[in-house]
């Protein structure tokens, strides 16, 4: 009978390297996929995924099964991704790290955002130049980071609302609102793809 994630992690805590290998085999791909969709760079995504597993390994002795393993894992991944995005943005803009990061509030407060999708008219024309997948990726990347993380965890990893809310440190009702706004933005951005073909 397959051992649960918590049982495997308790095995890692007890010094069983085989348990760590099983967790790695199970979550390597989902983590890299999530991080790639978050940061849009393959090398960065793999570096961050390595960092996630390293942090899990380093924390093994203090591990206590107080939450679902996936919640813990994706919380580490989300925090690392959000930090990487902010660091990258600060580097591009040459602004101080002490300044507000923007992110979710940036979109709401009318502050200029760096990673907004190209708002120029002619989305259909651009679609002619690029394939559909690139347009979809770009639309996802254009979401504010927290909305992006919420959509990725909900759409591609099928986590429960309470897990995603825990990872993003918000209430379940706030999460549902966040998801609705994110999908609404994507619906508008990807309108030509979403429209019913005659």
């Amino acid at each position: 009978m397959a051992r649960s994630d918590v049982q495997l992690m308790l095995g890692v805590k007890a010094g069983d390297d085989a348990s760590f290998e099983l967790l790695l085999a199970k979550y390597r791909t989902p983590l890299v996929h999530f991080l790639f969709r978050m940061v849009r760079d393959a090398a960065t995504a793999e570096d961050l995924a390595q960092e996630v597993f390293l942090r899990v390994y380093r924390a093994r002795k203090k591990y206590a099964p107080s939450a679902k393993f996936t919640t813990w894992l994706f919380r580490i991944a989300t925090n690392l991704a959000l930090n990487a995005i902010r660091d990258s943005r600060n580097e591009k803009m040459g602004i101080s790290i002490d300044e507000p990061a923007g992110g979710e509030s940036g979109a709401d407060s009318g502050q200029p955002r760096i990673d907004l999708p190209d708002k120029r008219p002619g989305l259909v024309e651009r679609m002619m130049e690029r394939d559909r997948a690139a347009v979809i990726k770009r639309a996802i990347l254009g979401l504010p980071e927290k909305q992006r993380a919420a959509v990725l965890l909900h759409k591609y990893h099928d986590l429960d609302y309470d897990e995603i809310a825990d990872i993003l440190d918000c209430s379940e009702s706030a999460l549902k609102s966040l998801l609705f706004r994110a999908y609404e933005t994507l619906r508008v951005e990807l309108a030509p793809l979403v429209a019913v073909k005659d």
Partner: protein
Amino acid sequence: MNCEKFEARMIAYMDGRATAEERGEVELHLVACSECRARVEEFRRLWGVLDETPAHEVSPAFDARLRARIAAEPRPSLLGWLLPQPRLALAMSLLVAMGVWISMIPPAQHQNEVARSEEEFKMIKDLQVLEDLDVLTNFEALSEVPPAQKPVQQKM
């Protein structure tokens, strides 16, 4: 239910995670509101479109790199093992100190202490006898007994 309330429940409804009561309210609203009905359909198509994004394949060297980084991690030291348990560390220090103190007592002093202990033990053992003697010598009733008379020598 109005459109605003519907929006708050729309995702859970579409996920199939709404309660029976919520589902009933949402469906009632959808019958009455064509705009929200159209939005549900668009969201469903959007979710299908989002499935088209290809995922990045993990590089074959990923595991080897990770294992190398784990192997380079510093191993926990004995001090590191004790420090999170200060009570245990204190108890072990006291035990060690006590052992050192006992081992430093000179053997001669140790023997004297043993001899002195034996004397004290004997004295305690005789204590009852000494107490009985004390009672006998100070017993008032015995003082009234006339001293024993010397036997009179008969003249021949």
